[in-house]
C-alpha cells in the first residue's frame, strides 16, 4: 500500500484546515444541492450563484460550501469551489469530466463495467492534481468525488423549485 503522503498531500491538508468558500448563499436565487456518502456519513451542501452573461453563457459568479466530512471530502469540496468560481457552466463541465477521469480509473475497475467513457477534455486541474493519489486508496475515491457529484446536481437544480 502506498504511504500516507500519497494521500494527504500538503495542499490537501491546507484546504482541509482552511476550507475556501465555506458558508451559505441565499437560495433562491442561488442553486443548492445536498450530497451524501452513506458509507461514512459525509455530507456536502453546494450553493451556486449562476448568472447569465450578455452573450447568453451562464457562469458561476459565487459559490459556497456547507456540510462536514473527512479531510479528503472537505479538501476536494474546497478545491472544487475555487476551481469553479467565475467559470462558465461549459468550462465547469469540462473540469468536472477531467477530474472524474482522473478518479474514475479505479471506479471502473471496481464496478466491473466495460464501457469506455468519452476521452477526458484537456483541462489544467491545478491544485486538484493533488487528489490524484486518492486513486491508490479505492475506498476514499467516493470521498473525493462527493463534492463533484453534488456540484453537478446543483447545476441541474432549479433554484426556484421547492
Amino acid at each position, binding site marked *: *500500500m502506498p504511504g500516507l503522503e500519497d494521500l494527504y498531500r500538503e495542499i490537501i491538508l491546507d484546504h482541509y484546515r482552511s476550507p475556501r468558500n465555506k458558508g451559505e448563499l441565499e437560495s433562491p436565487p442561488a442553486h443548492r444541492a445536498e450530497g*451524501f456518502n*452513506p*458509507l461514512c456519513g459525509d455530507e456536502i451542501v453546494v450553493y451556486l450563484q449562476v448568472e447569465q452573461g450578455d452573450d447568453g453563457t451562464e457562469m458561476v459568479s459565487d459559490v459556497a460550501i456547507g456540510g462536514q466530512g473527512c479531510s479528503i471530502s472537505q479538501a476536494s469540496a474546497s478545491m472544487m469551489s475555487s476551481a469553479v468560481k467565475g467559470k462558465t457552466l461549459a468550462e465547469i463541465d469540462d473540469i468536472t469530466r477531467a477530474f472524474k477521469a482522473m478518479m474514475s480509473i479505479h471506479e471502473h475497475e*471496481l*464496478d*466491473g*463495467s466495460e464501457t469506455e467513457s468519452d476521452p477526458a477534455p484537456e483541462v489544467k486541474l491545478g491544485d486538484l492534481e493533488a487528489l490524484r493519489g486518492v486513486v491508490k*486508496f*479505492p*475506498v*476514499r475515491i467516493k470521498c473525493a468525488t462527493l463534492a463533484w457529484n453534488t456540484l453537478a446536481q446543483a447545476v441541474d437544480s432549479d433554484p426556484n423549485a421547492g
Partner: protein
Amino acid sequence: MAVTHDLDVASIRADFPILSRRINNSRLVFLDSAASSQKPKSVLEAMDHFYKFSNANVHRGAYTMATEATDLMESARSKVARFIGAPSTDEIIFTKNVTEALNLVARSWGGDNLGPGDAVLVTEMEHHANIVPWHIMADQKGFDLRWIPITENGHLDLSDLDRLLDGVSLVSFTATSNVLGTINPIRHITDAAHAAGALVMVDGAQYVPHLPTDVVELGIDLFAFTGHKMLGPTGIGCLWGKSEVLEAMPPFLGGGEMILDVRKDGFTTNTLPHKFEAGTPPIAEIVGLGAAVDYLDNLGMDNVRAHEVSLTAYALRTLEERFGDSLTIHGPSEPASRGGLLSLDLAGTHPHDVSQVLDQHGICVRAGHHCAKPLMRALGVNATSRASLYVYNDESDVDALADALEAAKDFFAF
C-alpha cells in the same frame, strides 16, 4: 462451437484430496455430486488463504485487510458474472444457497406482484425449493400454482403450454431435473412465456455446474444456482436477475449493507447488488466460489459437458447391457438431452438397501425422494437410487457401480 478436449480425469482427481480416501476398504467412488460436489484443493486453499491473510469484514473498512477482503469478494462477483454471461456484476446477488435465492424472489417479487386471480407456472419435475416458496406465498396472497406435466419418457409435456400460460405472471422451472436428468428447452419455454407476458425464472442448480451458461442467450429474467454443487463451498448461492427486474423488486432481508439511510421512521435501500445482501456476506465462501469458477473455466465448460455426455452414454450402455429389464433408469434415454445423473430402480430391491450395499463397496449414491415428491408421485415411485457423474468420474467409476449393483441384486435376490 468450441473444439472440445477430453478431460484428463487422472490429473483432475489429483486435485481433489478427498478422492484418495478409502471407504470400507474400497477406494471412494463418489457418485453423489448432484447432492453436493467435492472441492478441489484450489478452492480450499483460496478460503484458507483468505482466513489466514486477509480476513476482515467487507465494504465499510478503510484499512488494508478490509480493502483486500472487499476486493477479493468483488472480484469473485465479477468471475461469477462472467461465468454465466451476466451483462453486469451488479446483477449478481449472493445468497446462502439456491433455496434462499428462489425464496427471495417468491417473497420479494411475489409479495409485490401476486394476488387473487394471478398464477405462477411451475413443472412437475421441480425440486421442493421451487415449489414450497410458492405454496407459502400462495397461502398468503391467494394466487394459483399451475403445473406443466411430464411425458412418459421424462420430458416436459409442452403440448398444452399456451393454455397453461394464459394469465400467468411468472414461469419458474428447473433447467435440469435433479431426478430425471432432463435438460429442459429453456429458450422455447421462455419465448412462449414472454409472448404470454410472463416473467421467467430458472433454477440452474443442476445446470450451471455442468454446461456453458449464458443467461442472455437463454433470454430469461431471473436465474439461481448454488455453490456447493459446482466445486464451491457450502453456504453460498447466487441469484442473477436483469437489472430492471431486480430494481423493481422490494428488498427481502433487512439490515446492514442493504441500506443508504436508516431513520426511526423508515429506510432508503441501497443500489444493486447490495440491496439484496443484508448483513455480513459469506465472504470466504464467495472467495471459494470464485476459485471454483476459475477451476471450471480452466477445464472449459464445453469440455466438461462433452465429458459428461460421453460418460453418461457409457453408463447407460453398460447398465443396459448388464442388467437389461431388471434395472429401470428414469428419464430421457438420449445422453445429449440429459445431464449425467441416473435415477435407478433395481427390481426386487429398495433404494435405501441398494445404497447401503453400495456404500459397503465404497460407492456413494443418494437414495430417496430427492426433494421432488410431486415428481415421485408422477413417476409412481417412493424413492430411487441416484448416481450422478462429474468431472472427476470416469468409466472405472461406472464399472464399479455396475459391479456393486450386481452384488446388491444377488444379496436381495429371492
